[in-house]
């Protein structure tokens, strides 16, 4: 177990394609850290740099107290689980798991007992003699996990390990991986673009965009106090409602021509901001002067999402999370209100969060 530190890491691929710029990141000893962000933001690149599969253009990488910037992958004492499992097709599940130990010339009985132990932890003992092509996706994923566990590494790296599984298996494996982490306590870096995984698995999550860290923090903090508009829009499903150019004054604000009282608004400097409202902080209210025209109602079983447009000159899109028995039909104009205490404000230009 060890902490991992990236210091001022710069990564430029061929043709001057800069993917990471001056990136500082610390993974604490024993922590489960999730990297999340849209496709192409550099998540895999960071992971591959930690693994040593990609060189840094500039900067340093430390695992524990050791500078491993130019140490080859085999000497970094890390284990990695790949998105497509990357099991060796010509070896049985047992041999796949034993591969790293055999390379390190460990004694036979030790290999045998370690593989069996990991297999029982993952309940894949009956599969040990099978070849990867005879295994289902979930079983392959377990073998790949087993291959990482037997190595007893300082750091686990996961690159979207669940994205090829179906929804049910995915939630099972989510629980399994967090359970393993709790039991083994190994420092873990987990890459995903699935925010459910990010929210449920990470002790801290790192939100990345365009190779730049937008925010680092515990999931709920990131959810409740997004550092900027990008994070606010990226985390949460369905995404946050944004209302541009909302004028905030002494007593409240002006939302599409409707004045809304805002307790504590005096702490916000007067001006025009972007207002952000989570779908669950909206609710129906026939009395409210805020009105929206419904254009889609999406029941999901336990609740329903109501999509519509603000009845005002600029017609902002509005998404509301409502109880499943919501009284709204397509074409209706309904009133709604929101909890002003849960309103987020962002700078109209930089997108940074305005604290209040």
């Amino acid at each position, binding site marked *: 177990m060890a902490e991992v530190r990236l210091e001022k890491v710069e990564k430029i691929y061929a043709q001057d394609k800069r993917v990471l710029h001056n990136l500082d990141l610390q993974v604490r000893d024993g922590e489960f850290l999730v990297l999340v962000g849209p496709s192409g933001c550099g998540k895999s690149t960071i992971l591959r740099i930690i*693994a*040593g*599969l990609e060189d840094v253009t500039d900067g340093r990488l430390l695992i524990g107290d050791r500078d491993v910037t130019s140490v*080859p*992958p*085999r000497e970094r004492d*890390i*284990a*990695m689980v*790949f998105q*497509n499992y*990357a099991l*060796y*097709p*010509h070896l049985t599940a047992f041999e796949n798991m034993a*591969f*790293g130990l055999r*390379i*390190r010339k460990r004694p036979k009985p030790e290999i045998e007992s370690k593989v069996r132990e990991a297999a029982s932890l993952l309940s894949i003992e009956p599969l040990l003699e099978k070849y990867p092509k005879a295994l289902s996706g979930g079983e392959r994923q377990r073998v790949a996990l087993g*291959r990482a566990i037997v*190595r007893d590494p300082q750091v686990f790296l996961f690159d979207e390990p669940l994205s090829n599984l179906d929804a049910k298996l995915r939630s099972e494996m989510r629980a399994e991986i967090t359970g393993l982490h709790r039991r083994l306590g190994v420092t873990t870096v987990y890459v995903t673009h699935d925010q459910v995984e990010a929210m449920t698995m990470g002790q801290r999550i790192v939100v990345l965009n365009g190779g730049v860290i937008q925010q680092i923090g515990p999931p709920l903090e990131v959810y409740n106090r997004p550092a900027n508009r990008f994070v606010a829009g990226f985390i949460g499903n369905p995404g946050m409602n944004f209302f541009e150019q909302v004028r905030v004054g002494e007593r409240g604000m002006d939302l599409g021509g409707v004045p809304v009282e805002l307790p504590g608004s005096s702490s916000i400097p007067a001006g025009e901001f972007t207002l952000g409202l989570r779908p669950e902080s909206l609710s129906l209210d026939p009395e409210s002067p805020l009105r929206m025209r419904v254009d889609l109602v999406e029941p999901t079983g336990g609740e329903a999402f109501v999509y519509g447009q603000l009845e005002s000159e600029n017609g902002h899109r509005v998404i509301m999370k409502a109880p499943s028995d919501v009284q709204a039909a397509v074409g209706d104009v309904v009133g709604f209100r929101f909890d002003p205490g849960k309103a987020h404000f962002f700078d109209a230009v930089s997108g940074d969060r305005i604290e209040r």
Partner: protein
Amino acid sequence: MKRLKSILLHLLLVGITIATIYPILVVISVSLRPSDALYSTSLSLIPDGATLDAFKVILTDKPFLLWMRNSLIVSLSVTIFGVALASTAGYAFSRFRFPGRRVGMIALLVTQMFPATMLLLPLYVLMRKLGLVDSLLGLIVAYTATVLPFTVWTLKGYYDTIPRDLEEAAMVDGTTQIGAFVRVVLPLARPALMITSLFSFMSGWSEFIVARVILSSQSLYTLPLGLEGLAGTFQTEWANYSAGSLLVCLPVVLLFLSLNRFLVSGLTLGGVKG
């Protein structure tokens, strides 16, 4: 309709099979003829008074075993050198980006556009300068050089279908790049290695023209050269000649039969790989 199609298809296949097999049967038949029936025009496959005399003559009175030894030395060396060089060169072309990579690939392809006979003269001059004329080593070098373009391309193409993740997983697991190549890539490339080995072996086994040009000592003759010597200028003992041909084919047939399993998957290389 479907039935008719199937019948026609089978008739065609039977026809092709007969056309392929018949000449071989004739050779077998000729090799069994007693020496007093050499010019017999009888069409029966097993001739009257069939005998194995011709085989005995070939194996005892002629230096057939010497030719066989020479051919084996040459073909096996070509196979070993050829596959060793092609498997590593193909890997480099498949995995690394280096200056000259594209040019190198194309240059290899271009050499395939010239007929071998066109290369005879320069090849001979080169061998002379290297002092390799009239030596088995010269023949080995010449054959290896001619098979490499094909084998390098075949293996490069096969490596391209092996996901890089596997090597990366191996390297994270503790191997060097070369270790990943040996422990993961080579075992997975077995069908391609088999077919390139077979190709290398065959090209040495049955080649005549280059051998004719490079070798002059009778003691260095390979099978094709020796066999040609059996066909006399004025008179040819056809039974001996046929028996010799059959003996030359035998190892190749055995090789094909034993590698059958790999050949089927090897020949479909480059097709869709599931």
